């Protein structure tokens, strides 16, 4: 077990492409750190630099206070679970798990004890004599984890370990990994492109984009206080809605509603007349179902509902809107960066399943405007960051996260720290 400290880590490929650009990140001893971002953001490259499979172009990589830049992977005492598990096809499950110990020449009885212990933890005992080809996806995944835990490694590294499993199994294994990490208390770095995994697993989450660190924070803070448009769009499912917002006479005008511009924001806006507003689907409600005492805090407005999706536990409604070319363009770029398709400008609203709102009709919705984020369309900066100090979840306890390279100026407070105690998952 050991802390991992990265200082100004950069990786430049032969074609001059900086896959990882000047990243500094402190991972505390025993912490579960998630590296998340869309494909090509450099998260796996960063992980591979930690483990030593990728050379570091510049910067310092410290594990347990020792600089490891020039150390071979085998001298770093880390263990890693690969995306495709990388099980040795010619060895049995037992020998796969025992492999790192065999390499070190550990005595047989010691190996037996530790492999069996790991097998018990991971419920693999009855499969020990089988070959990887005979195992199911979930079992292979567990064998890979067995190989990682059998050795007292300084840290565990996971490279998208669940992406080859089906959705149901993924949920189970996610809990399994979390349980294991909690029990062993080993420093863990976990790479994923799945924001759900990032939110549920991490003590802290580092969001990356094109090789640059965007924000390092607790999942809750990422959700509530995203520093920019990119983080806001990446975290949350269904994703945050982005609408054009114009500032007119102290009012923020959105396609369906308008509300008074908070004074703190007004000073940050500068000469921007056109902004992007970010509204989370779950912050809306069917106006008919909002409690009386809550209703006054928000505003109600009428929209035309295009399509609804009823999922039993939830209901989504889709509301098309028009946006100026400038904003549409910007949003299309953002969608592309987030690995998704920009289809049309529409808003997703999450409603209570008991809501009677139906397709093709107009409906009355409710929204608390204090939860609306406003972004500068030019650089994506969140202009409403930390307006409301009681909503910001900044607290001491964890070692300081490091601010990102190109992060906007307003994020100083946000990137430092995370919640101390874990949220229940």
């Amino acid at each position, binding site marked *: 077990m050991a802390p991992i400290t990265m200082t100004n880590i950069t990786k430049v*490929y*032969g074609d001059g*492409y900086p896959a990882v650009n000047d990243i500094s990140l402190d991972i505390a001893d025993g912490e579960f750190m998630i590296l998340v971002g869309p494909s*090509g953001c450099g998260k796996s490259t960063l992980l591979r630099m930690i483990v030593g499979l*990728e050379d570091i*172009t510049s910067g310092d990589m410290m594990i347990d206070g020792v600089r490891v830049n020039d150390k071979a992977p085998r001298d770093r005492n880390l263990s890693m679970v690969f995306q495709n598990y990388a099980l040795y096809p010619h060895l049995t499950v037992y020998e796969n798990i025992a492999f790192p110990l065999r390499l070190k020449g550990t005595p047989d009885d010691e190996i037996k004890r530790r492999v069996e212990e790991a097998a018990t933890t991971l419920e693999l005992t009855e499969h020990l004599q089988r070959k990887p080809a005979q195992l199911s996806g979930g079992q292979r995944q567990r064998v890979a984890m067995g190989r990682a835990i059998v050795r007292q490694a300084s840290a565990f590294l996971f490279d998208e370990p669940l992406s080859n499993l089906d959705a149901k199994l993924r949920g189970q294994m996610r809990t399994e990994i979390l349980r294991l990490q909690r029990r062993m208390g080993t420093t863990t770095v976990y790479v994923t*492109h*799945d924001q759900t995994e990032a939110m549920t697993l991490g003590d802290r989450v580092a969001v990356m984009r094109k090789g640059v660190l965007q924000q390092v924070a607790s999942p809750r803070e990422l959700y509530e206080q995203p520093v920019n448009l990119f983080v806001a769009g990446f975290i949350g499912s269904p994703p945050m809605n982005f609408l054009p917002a114009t500032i007119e006479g102290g009012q923020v005008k959105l396609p369906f509603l308008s509300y008074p511009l908070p004074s703190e924001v007004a000073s940050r806006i500068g000469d921007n007349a056109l902004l992007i507003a970010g509204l989370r689907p779950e912050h809306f409600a069917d106006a008919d179902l909002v409690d009386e005492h809550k209703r006054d805090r928000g505003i109600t407005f009428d929209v035309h509902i295009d399509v609804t999706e009823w999922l039993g536990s939830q209901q989504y409604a889709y509301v098309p809107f028009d946006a100026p070319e400038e904003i549409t363009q910007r949003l299309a770029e953002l969608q592309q960066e987030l690995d998704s398709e920009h289809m049309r400008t529409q808003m997703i609203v999450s409603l209570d399943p008991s809501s009677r709102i139906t397709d093709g009709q107009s409906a009355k919705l409710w929204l608390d405007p204090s939860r609306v984020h406003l972004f500068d369309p030019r650089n994506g900066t969140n202009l409403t960051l930390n307006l409301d100090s009681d909503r910001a979840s900044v607290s001491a306890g964890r070692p300081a996260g490091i601010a990102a390279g190109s992060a906007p100026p307003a994020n100083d407070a946000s990137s430092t720290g995370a919640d101390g105690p874990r949220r229940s998952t």
Partner: protein
Amino acid sequence: MTTTVAAPSKDTPAGAGTAPKAPMSTGRSRHQRRRYAIHIGGAILIILYTMLPIAWILSLSFKAGGDISNKKFLPKHWSLANYRVVFKTSLFTSALRNSIGVALLATVIGVAVATLAAYAIARLDFPGKRLILSVALAIAMFPVVALVGPLFDMWRAVHLFDTWPGLIIPYISFTLPLAIWVLSAFFREIPWEMEQAAQVDGATPWQAFTKAIVPLAAPGVFTTAILAFFFAWNEFAIAVSLTSTNRARTVPAALAFFNGASQFQQPVGAQAAAAVVVTIPIVLMVLVFQKRIVSGLTSGAVKG
């Protein structure tokens, strides 16, 4: 909460593979530079290994007169005399003609026959196809020389001795195993649904075959043809046993018989020149079809 999933991610930047092959020169570590040195050294070693004997026979072919026995690698005077002798010698020119004719005919017929069989094996389900593959494998391992005695006897009886067909028939038979193996491996990789898709799109069965399948199968057939040609061009045991005159004697056999020929003052130089001449087509084919040859050599054996 639903799980949003982005595109299946291979988390690497465009243009840079997971295991980047060429990191920038800045920050190239010491052991990396050593690795490069080993690679380059290895490459040079391989090229030296393959080139030395070839360079030697080339050098030998330019030696004339006393140079032949100068016991040096290179000639003192570069001479084309040996080449002039070779092209004036009917033993060699007719052998060249025979080799080209026999090898080409054996290749074309052999590949055609093998294509039919390989198609059946890869595409159709019929009892005995495993047996065919096993028989082919057995023949591929067969000691060719064990057959020349009986073939010698038989060919004399049916007047095929010292004729082109007398060589072509055994060559076809011995290229068939390799051809069937390589081709059926290639054919197994072809997405045959293409044929149905084309038919659904309105093509006739014949159009579907020629438009959808032939373009996909052609590279495999071509690769097989190259390998078959190499075999026929190279074959010696049958050629030396089943021929006796310039009528059908091929280049490898003629080369071996250059030895005692009295019409040459310097059989060594002439032999070397002849060897170089018959190597040129091989070198050209290797240069042009390098990739195909490698894939053909390994597909049948390893991929399976």
